[in-house]
């Protein structure tokens, strides 16, 4: 995609953001007196702030980019990631799990596992989490530096180090509170920065109704715009559930109802929202139990409405691409200028009668699939009236039959945002990438300091010592993240493997947590071996299955192909379901075969049956988590019905 030119007002907005986040950090320094202040905000933050930070920690730029991409590829069905794959889990966390996380006074999720089970389970969870956050942080910063390089022409290293430096300063100065405050700022910037883009896009396409009828046409013939190789029912892009009912062959996602409801809706989503310390940490920073329980509830409200902001742009992009008069297409993958030069030469030197050879020559030169009809038209146009090199290049750009879906959101920003609004949208993206690093580093430094360093390596030191360690490891964390960013940049395939491994680790964790909180008989040995077994079964499942169209290797099936799934997403959801079940069964069986090491008294406040129920009668009705949660669930069901 061609670089964007920024005006003075855009740079001013960018600079203002940097000044503000540094200012927040410096303003908070005087309140950082203990390790608790620095690492867990001293449990003092109001509900609306923790609620918005909770959702913001999750809403990284990669999600923004990825959801628009998925919106283009799969339509409104992408909303399952929100309405099935998030809301129920968030409400469950609020009503049933926060009492244990917050009431136990555990300072982190691994610490809760230590209190409930023992140091082995804690250590496994803490170590895995620590490594994952560093890589997640690095991925975020690599994506940011790449974006600034491609979009604005900045030097990659400069962008990486300057942005990491800004994050380092404000986290070092203001700790978790700094990260939380900047996450809330980021939330508003994203909502207020992208809402106009969605509005303008919908207006351009003719309104919601016009967009849906356009998408009806696309669904029946996606080949016309090289979107998919199969055709579907008219509502495949505009209906969330109906295309799933026919089975995985009937929808572009390639999944069935069970995979969505159990794999995504239960295992993966509950596994993420209920156990990932990155988000749970924000709820744990709340000022009291009611605030902590209401944090995910407050977060669920914008989460339910986000599909309008992040998924609809993808649908708009597809609709626009299918209307020739709009002269818009989803950008093709980035191709080197030299490849274009070669392809231009191929068009100029071709034999107009032999289009098949030209198409092949162009496709080889560009390294991508091309639309044969468009190439033929280009050759004919060149034969009729000799076209300039840049005209041929434009023609070639428009005939590449592959899409870089990740650039959908940027292309819409570029299309609709004048100077000013452009600065706001880009700054919002920048803010969310940097938040991704800050959030991960603040989760990392807490888990390292309290659960690895203090619990396992160097206990019984003064709080000042751990406060110092918290700050020291923050610096180490940022440096390690930069290292991970370079690694991600260099070894694309290795990153796929790393994220695959994280998927194996995350899949079974919810089974462990469920049994921890709701089954008194669960033992430490059972949980530890069950979790290891769960991770192992993820790996095994992956080694024995493949998705349609993939070759055995990194994508799976390298031991044998016992089953082929219609899509990678389906493979993922079924893997999660399998790992969850394996972990659950193993933990139960091994727990029953081993002795309990903790008495009922020790488990009070950690397990459902041994903890007095929280009485919410004193709080106003709308502040009671169970009531608010039920209302939100009903709203979520209504949304699902509207887009049925």
């Amino acid at each position, binding site marked *: 995609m061609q670089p964007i030119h920024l005006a003075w*007002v855009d740079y001013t907005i960018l600079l*203002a953001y940097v000044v503000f986040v540094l200012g927040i950090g410096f303003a908070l320094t005087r309140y950082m007196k203990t390790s608790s202040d620095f690492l867990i905000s001293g449990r003092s*933050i109001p509900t609306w702030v923790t609620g918005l930070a909770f959702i913001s920690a999750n809403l990284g730029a990669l999600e923004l980019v990825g959801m628009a991409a998925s919106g283009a590829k799969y339509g409104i069905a992408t909303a399952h990631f929100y309405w099935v794959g998030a809301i129920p889990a968030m409400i469950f966390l609020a009503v049933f799990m926060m009492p244990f996380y917050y009431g136990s006074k555990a300072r982190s999720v691994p610490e809760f596992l230590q209190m409930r089970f023992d140091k082995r389970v804690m250590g496994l969870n803490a170590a895995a989490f620590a490594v994952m956050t560093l890589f997640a942080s690095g991925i975020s910063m690599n994506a940011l530096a790449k974006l600034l390089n491609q979009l604005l022409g900045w030097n990659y290293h400069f962008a990486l180090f300057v942005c990491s430096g800004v994050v380092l300063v404000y986290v070092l100065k203001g700790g978790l*509170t700094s990260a939380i*405050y900047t996450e809330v700022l980021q939330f508003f910037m994203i909502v207020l920065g992208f809402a106009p883009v969605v509005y303008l896009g919908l207006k351009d396409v003719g309104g919601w109704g016009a967009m849906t009828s356009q998408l009806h046409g696309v669904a029946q013939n996606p080949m016309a715009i090289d979107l998919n190789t199969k055709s579907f029912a008219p509502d495949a892009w505009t209906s969330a559930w109906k295309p799933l009912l026919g089975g995985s062959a009937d929808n572009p996602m390639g999944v069935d109802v069970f995979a969505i409801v159990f794999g995504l809706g239960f295992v993966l989503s509950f596994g993420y929202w209920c156990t990932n310390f990155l988000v749970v940490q924000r709820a744990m920073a709340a000022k009291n139990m009611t605030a902590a329980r209401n944090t995910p509830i407050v977060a669920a409200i914008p989460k339910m409405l986000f599909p309008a902001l992040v998924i609809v742009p993808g649908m708009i992009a597809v609709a626009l691409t299918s209307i020739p008069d709009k002269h818009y297409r989803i950008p093709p993958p980035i191709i080197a200028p030299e490849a274009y030069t070669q392809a231009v030469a191929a068009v100029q030197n071709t034999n107009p009668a032999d289009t098949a050879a030209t198409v092949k020559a162009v496709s080889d030169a560009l390294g991508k699939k091309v639309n044969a009809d468009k190439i033929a038209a280009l050759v004919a146009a060149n034969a009729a009236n000799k076209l300039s090199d840049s005209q041929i290049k434009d023609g070639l750009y428009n005939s590449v039959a592959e899409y870089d879906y990740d650039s959908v959101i940027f292309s819409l920003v570029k299309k609709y945002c*004048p100077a000013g*609004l452009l600065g706001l949208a880009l700054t919002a993206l920048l803010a969310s990438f940097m938040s991704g690093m800050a959030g991960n580093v603040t989760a990392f430094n807490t888990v390292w300091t309290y659960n690895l360093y203090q619990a396992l390596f160097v206990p019984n030191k003064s709080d000042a010592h751990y406060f110092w360690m918290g700050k020291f490891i923050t610096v180490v964390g940022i440096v390690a993240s930069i290292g991970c960013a370079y690694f991600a940049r260099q070894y694309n395939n290795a990153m796929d493997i790393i994220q695959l491994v994280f998927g194996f680790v995350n899949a079974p964790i919810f089974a462990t947590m469920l049994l921890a909180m709701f089954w008194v008989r669960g033992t430490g040995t059972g949980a530890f071996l069950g979790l290891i077994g769960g991770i192992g079964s993820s790996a095994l499942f992956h080694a024995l299955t493949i998705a349609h169209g993939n070759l055995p290797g990194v994508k799976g099936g390298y031991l044998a192909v016992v089953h082929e799934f219609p899509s990678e997403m389906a493979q993922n959801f079924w893997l999660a379901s399998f790992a969850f079940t394996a972990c659950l069964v193993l933990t139960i069986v091994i727990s029953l075969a081993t002795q309990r090491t903790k008495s009922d008294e020790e488990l009070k406040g950690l397990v459902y049956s041994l903890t007095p129920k929280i009485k919410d009668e004193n709080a106003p009705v709308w502040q009671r988590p169970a009531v608010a949660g039920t209302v939100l669930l009903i709203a979520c069901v209504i949304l699902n019905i509207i887009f049925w």
Partner: protein
Amino acid sequence: MGLDIRWPIGLMFTLIGALLVITGLVQGPDARSLNINIDLVWGIILLVFGVLMLAGAVWGGKKKNEGGK
């Protein structure tokens, strides 16, 4: 914790709103934005949002002083 978050949010959006309004007035409607002066319109909305946030921060500060928290 000490700093009321409504202050930085309010200031930030008041500033951005003002910048967009100025840009909108200077540049006028852009064909890209379907001939709507989106900078001006959205700038005003952001300005209002920023001012409301600041008002919330001021009111929150007063409540804290009166409540003697």
